[in-house]
């Protein structure tokens, strides 16, 4: 079922932050730049919310814009669109003044615009352009580069991201060559070598961008040396997983079906590998990166489970990982800015004594990330476990073991930062500032209320999951036919 918006809400959600990025980047006054960014991101959030409401009313429908068919919204991308706009707004509010520049805020606006465009893309070329655009601040633009830093992120991470972009372009190019048109609406069956090659390149792009083994190191290195909050936004766009759900699964179902065991095993191995590394890691930013990689890998594991329950679990876990890691990163960045060089969390720092609210926000983020009850992480893990264990028992058994390891690493990180004998620098530490309190409370409520009443947040992912699983089941059935 296709419906169309008379007002181009999706285009507005892309154009508002895009225009604001150019405007904000030229400002010299930081408070004004922050106000302008927050206003633009809030407007973008409102437009995505309006589009989201339309989908919530007709969850089976796909909405395009009456003016042009460039963007579309349905049950799959409705929540990610709104969520990412909200995350960017949160980051713009929470970013500590330390090292903050109008250009930095312009970078967040740019990321919001390009990622929103990628989620809403209804054409392969738009998607590829938006994917490239979301990488631009880390590869060619200098939004997030500090004065004494030549590069935004280390060269190694840049090389991996370039490679992911090249793979995507080749994969998309091959698909376009094979397609009757450029839209994302056609379905191809039959294993031609061209489609198989396209699939290979697209999956290589996913592996590189999502940081699956052996490409996980770029995330860890970038988190350690790069700007934390923009990087968290980059990782939390989950465009790799979205590429799988939006393009690979519906367009190449038969090729995907034959290759899934390999990619499923790879994403599970990444989860295990990152969790083991996190156990021995002492550098907090690296621990954070490894836990985020490990938990994010489950998103792909769920998508590849071919069951509605597993896919829905993956889509809900996507929301949880995004909000929880952004919340934790915001608290961490705030503490780094407050304490400067004194912030060395390789031993107990005891910061909860003077910053109890920040401690609570960080703890809730940790607990949600590893699927503990009273948070949205619990239903997400439950669905994921039910979905994966039903199709692959080994996979389903490893999942809770890895989650347990990640839980230990995350809680140990929390303990090191907030508990124990307070360090000298902790004595005059300020707790959550009003702007931090409101933004973090919103994330807190999303995770906790989402955990108590998860139906609302699971409804749309469940519909999208049933659609994707239905297509996968159709392929399995067709392959069984003589």
């Amino acid at each position, binding site marked *: 079922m296709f419906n169309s918006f008379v007002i181009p809400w999706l285009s507005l959600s892309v154009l508002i932050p895009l225009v604001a990025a150019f405007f904000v980047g030229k400002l010299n006054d930081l408070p004004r730049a922050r106000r302008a960014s927050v206003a633009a991101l809030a407007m973008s959030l409102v437009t995505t919310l309006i589009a989201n409401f339309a989908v919530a009313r007709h969850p089976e429908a796909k909405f395009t814009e009456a003016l042009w068919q460039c963007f579309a919204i349905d049950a799959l991308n409705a929540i990610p669109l709104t969520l990412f706009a909200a995350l960017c707004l949160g980051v713009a509010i929470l970013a500590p003044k330390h090292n903050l520049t109008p250009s930095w805020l312009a970078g967040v606006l740019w990321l919001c615009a390009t990622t929103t465009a990628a989620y809403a893309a209804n054409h392969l070329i738009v998607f590829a352009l938006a994917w490239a655009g979301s990488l631009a601040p880390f590869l060619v633009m200098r939004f997030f580069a500090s004065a004494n830093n030549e590069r935004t992120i280390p060269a*190694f991470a840049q090389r991996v991201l370039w490679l992911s972009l090249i793979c995507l372009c080749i994969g998309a190019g091959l698909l376009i060559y094979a397609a009757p048109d450029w839209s994302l609406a056609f379905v191809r069956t039959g294993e031609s070598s061209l489609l198989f090659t396209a699939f290979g390149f697209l999956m290589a792009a996913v592996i590189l961008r999502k940081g699956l083994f052996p490409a996980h*190191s770029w995330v860890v*290195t970038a988190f350690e040396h790069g700007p934390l909050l923009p990087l968290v936004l980059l990782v939390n766009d989950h465009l790799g997983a979205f590429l799988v759900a939006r393009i690979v699964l519906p367009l190449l179902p038969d090729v995907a079906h034959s290759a899934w065991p390999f990619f499923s095993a790879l994403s599970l191995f990444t989860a295990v*590998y990152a969790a*083991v*590394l*996190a*156990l*021995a*890691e*002492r*550098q907090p930013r*690296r621990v954070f990166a490894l836990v985020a990689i490990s938990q994010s890998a489950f998103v792909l594991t769920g998508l590849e489970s071919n069951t*509605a*329950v597993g896919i*829905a*679990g993956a889509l809900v876990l996507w929301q949880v990982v995004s909000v929880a890691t952004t919340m934790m990163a915001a608290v961490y960045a705030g503490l780094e800015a407050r304490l400067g060089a004194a912030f060395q969390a*390789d*031993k*107990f720092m*005891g910061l*909860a*004594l003077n910053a109890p*609210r920040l401690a*609570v926000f960080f703890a809730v983020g940790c*607990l949600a990330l590893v699927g*503990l*009850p*009273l948070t949205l992480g*619990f*239903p997400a893990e*439950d*669905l994921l*476990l*039910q979905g994966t*264990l039903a199709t692959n028992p080994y996979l*389903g*058994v490893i999942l*809770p*073991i890895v989650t*347990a390891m990640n*839980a*230990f690493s995350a*809680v*140990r990180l929390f*303990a090191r930062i*907030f*508990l*124990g*004998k*307070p360090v000298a620098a902790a004595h005059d530490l300020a707790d959550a500032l009003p702007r931090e309190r409101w933004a973090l*409370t919103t994330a*807190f409520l999303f995770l906790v209320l989402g955990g108590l009443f*998860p*139906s609302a947040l*699971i409804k749309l992912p*469940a519909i999208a*999951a*049933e659609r994707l*699983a239905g297509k996968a089941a159709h392929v399995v059935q067709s392959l069984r036919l003589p």
Partner: protein
Amino acid sequence: MNESLLLALLIVLPSGWCAVLGASWMLGARWPERPVARITTACYAAVLLIVAALWWQLFASGKAQLYALYGNWFEVGHYHFPIALWADYLSLPLLTLSALLTLIVSVFSRTYIHRDAGFFRFFVLLNLFGSGILLFFAAGSFDLMIGGWEIVGVTSILLIAFFQHRDDPVTSALRVFATYRACDVGLLVGVVLMHIFVGTSEFAEVLPNNIAPHTPLVGNAATIVAFLLLLAAMGKAAQVPFSGWLPRAMEGPTPSSAIFYGALSVHAGAYLLLRAQPLIESSLLVAEAIIAIGLLTAIHGTLVGRTCADAKTGLAYATMTQLGIIFVEIGFGLTRMAIWHIVGHALLRTMQFLRAPSLLHDHHRLHAAAAGHLSETGKHFEKLLPPNIQHWLYRLALDRGHHDNFLDRLVIAPVVRLARKLQRIEAKLIGEKANASRAPLTAKAGLIQNAEGADV
């Protein structure tokens, strides 16, 4: 009032009060001590009345259980997570115990934690624990039990690290958390397997009832699920070889030690096994394993308990011994005896834990009352053993059965060593300086540490 409303109120009252406390703190409100403690006490008094009403309804109706289904928490396709509460002759004694002991501890803590900087935090966590344990005992499905189980676990960790300005309680809390999480894997996988084998985890469908007198889970499926649930129960009930966390948990404030490790939390594992009794009955192997584990734990507990120098640790090992015996009773299928044992043991141990800070005072009073002739107990058993065995056992007990050393050396250290090796390989490959220290590993204070003393 109907049973649905009563069962719902049982969970809503403490969790609602906990939410009010938490939300008001987040909004910046500062509560005086007295209303926090009094409302908590009133809340659990109300819960106790509700439990009494449930007892009355159960007797009056003549049913085997009270059951309320509130719909699905969430659903995807054919899978749904039902919210069902359940009260029967197994859960009601434990619900009564939970309400009563939380009430007693809230009254005791009013003066015990008076003017402590963490007074408010303690009561928030006590209410969270109360909600979790009531949810666990009143759950009508194994799915919902996981929720209560995990809430109890998290609260337990936060209360062990209650004195957060010292490093040792935090290190102990991390160790306990690691043990809990490792064993909780059993519960998670076990319950998911139940869904896969029989399509549900609701008691009404998994456990024998009036319509279906036998559990649908039989044979290998029942054995696998029962073994996984046993793993979870072993962790929570501090059974060998996961017993090392219990003495560490004594770092928390005494009232929390009383309610968690003397009364309710440690018995959650036994309750889980009692709930899964029909599965255990269908598998002799599991029953034998439970008996063996229980016996080993009881011997370990009584042995180590004799060498403990402080009151709370001694009580922890005494608890461990009784829990071992309860496991043996469950293994033999003595369900009713196990329930009475749990109730009696929880009440006695709570009293002992709450009196532990006044132990010397009590001892002096007793000593005076006995006119200075207090005889030592238990020595007649020890004298039956040859002296060299006595010495060997003493050394074994002094090192707490070497359990922690075994776990550290055989499980934790190899994983950490592997992780460090991988880190170095990666660092070489991408041309970075390896982050992990090359210092040799030693086990100290419950966390693996390197020789420089920095925990990893």
